[in-house]
């Protein structure tokens, strides 16, 4: 089943750069889809179309459709607030909000108006478990989140998004600043999460793409060059450009 369908998406910024050119692809549900490619390829732009975070950037023109469960999210009539609750995002640098650990996780819920302390507590524990962080912080939920290590902060950001029970989770180079152990913990968490969520990941290395991808899409200068099941694409890429990038001849 396809959770997200991208139809002929073209995106242009006000300074003239064309970030996406006629990209069409599908994001299957309950799987990890990886968008990889060299810098400037449009991976982040594509990701930010899914939760309309591109509204904050200087976008000149967007054409095409992005269908979430069959409904076009790019339609101006879409309620972006509820969209962003359905489609969560984890950023490259862990940005913990200036609250406690608990406060970070409940922030999204409080935005929605949730107030029952018991429900909030349950949500906190549930989300932190899903993000593989519960055991490390269960005794200090009221400590400032800024005191956590980089890897822990990033898992906290993941838990923060999970608290809203999204259906899709977008991750933009989530482990780029992290050590290998933390990276491993995040990747392991994603493998567990894909059972219940749809995951779209922009990896920070081709190796990470190869490790995690159920499906992979290679984006080069705004165009979708190749797309297919992860194992196949990395072992037998069809397009020469894909092969050159994977083997390190450029990038």
């Amino acid at each position, binding site marked *: 089943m396809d959770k997200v369908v991208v139809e002929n998406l073209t995106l242009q910024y006000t300074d003239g750069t064309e970030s996406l050119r006629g990209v069409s692809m599908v994001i299957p549900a309950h799987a990890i889809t990886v968008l990889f490619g060299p810098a400037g390829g449009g991976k982040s732009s594509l990701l930010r179309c899914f939760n309309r975070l591109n509204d904050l950037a200087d976008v000149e023109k967007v054409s095409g459709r992005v*269908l*979430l*469960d*069959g*409904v076009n*999210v790019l339609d101006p*009539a*879409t*309620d*972006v607030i*509820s*969209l962003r*609750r*359905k489609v969560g995002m984890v950023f490259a640098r862990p940005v913990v909000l200036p609250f406690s650990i608990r406060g970070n996780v409940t922030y999204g*819920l409080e935005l*929605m108006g*949730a107030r*029952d302390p018991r*429900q909030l507590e*349950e*949500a906190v524990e*549930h989300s932190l478990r899903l993000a593989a962080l519960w055991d490390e912080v269960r005794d200090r939920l009221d400590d400032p989140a800024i005191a956590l290590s980089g890897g822990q902060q990033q898992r906290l950001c993941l838990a923060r998004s999970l608290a*809203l*029970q999204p*259906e899709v989770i977008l991750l933009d180079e989530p482990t780029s600043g992290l050590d290998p152990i933390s990276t491993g913990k995040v990747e392991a968490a994603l493998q567990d999460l894909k059972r219940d969520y749809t995951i779209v990941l922009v990896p920070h290395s081709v190796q990470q793409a190869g490790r995690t991808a159920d499906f992979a899409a290679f984006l080069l200068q705004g165009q979708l060059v190749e797309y297919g099941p992860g194992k196949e694409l990395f072992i037998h890429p069809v397009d020469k450009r894909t092969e050159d990038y994977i083997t390190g001849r450029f990038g």
Partner: protein
Amino acid sequence: MTGTIRQDVDRAGKGPRRTPRRDWGQFLVTRLIQMSGYSAIVFVGLIFFFLVREGLPAVFQVPLGHLFSVRWYPIEGYFGVLPLITGSLIVTAGAMAVAIPFGIGTAVFISEIAPRWAREILKPLVELLGGLPSVVLGFLGILLLSPFLRRFLNLPTGLTALAGSLLLGGIAVPTIVSIAEDALDAVPKAYREAALALGATRWQTMWGVTFPAARSGVMTAIMLGIGRAIGETMAVMMVTGNAPVLALRLASIVSPVRTMTATIAAEMGEVATGSQHYHVLFFIGMVLFLISLIVNVIASAVVFRQRSRAERVLS
């Protein structure tokens, strides 16, 4: 478990909902904030409007020739504002002669030379000076500065333009120091390092590289200092002697003068609303407003122009 928190539980798997009716409270808040943003323009407009409303009649009631004559003696109907203008000018010029060297010198010292411990002492002290109410400085001027000037310079009275200039200089220095120091601090370290790497001494770097780079900020500092000096009321009213005589000779600096600001402050309490005198005082207020408008617009234009040039160069 947490199903009751998620409001969209009925929409799981059905895509995003369409925009609901917007929250009215949020709309109201946004409007209030927007109007607060515009308020500055409203207030400037209001001030200008009221000054003109009460000041323009003066131009009609008092023939222009008289208005710009050299005699200010309201009791007998003489409303020549020139002595007041020259009074303000000479006191301000004197103030700048004091404030610019000391202000810039201190700013350069604090930002380029002073060790950390000296900076921690100097900056608060300069801020302290800036926080002193001008009436306090005027008070000290009357009791300490004027008698001193009188004895030291052998003058008939210490209440002179010089006393006013010295006090005003002291009042303008903190403004100049804080803005100039910010400007110097903002010069990227890379500039200094590049100059030093080429063999320049710190002194040469300061004046050849850093100071020119901060030029617009320093000019802004000076302009704002001038604005502060022209607009000062209490301190000058208390120590300049309040004699509305034309101040054009060099000797005027050690004679009593009267500034525009002091005139308004001293006489407004005594006038009858709607009288000629009343309107002329508002007219002087108009002039002061326009002077400060020009000074500030020039200062901000300098900053904008310099910044956009730098942005173009560095992009």
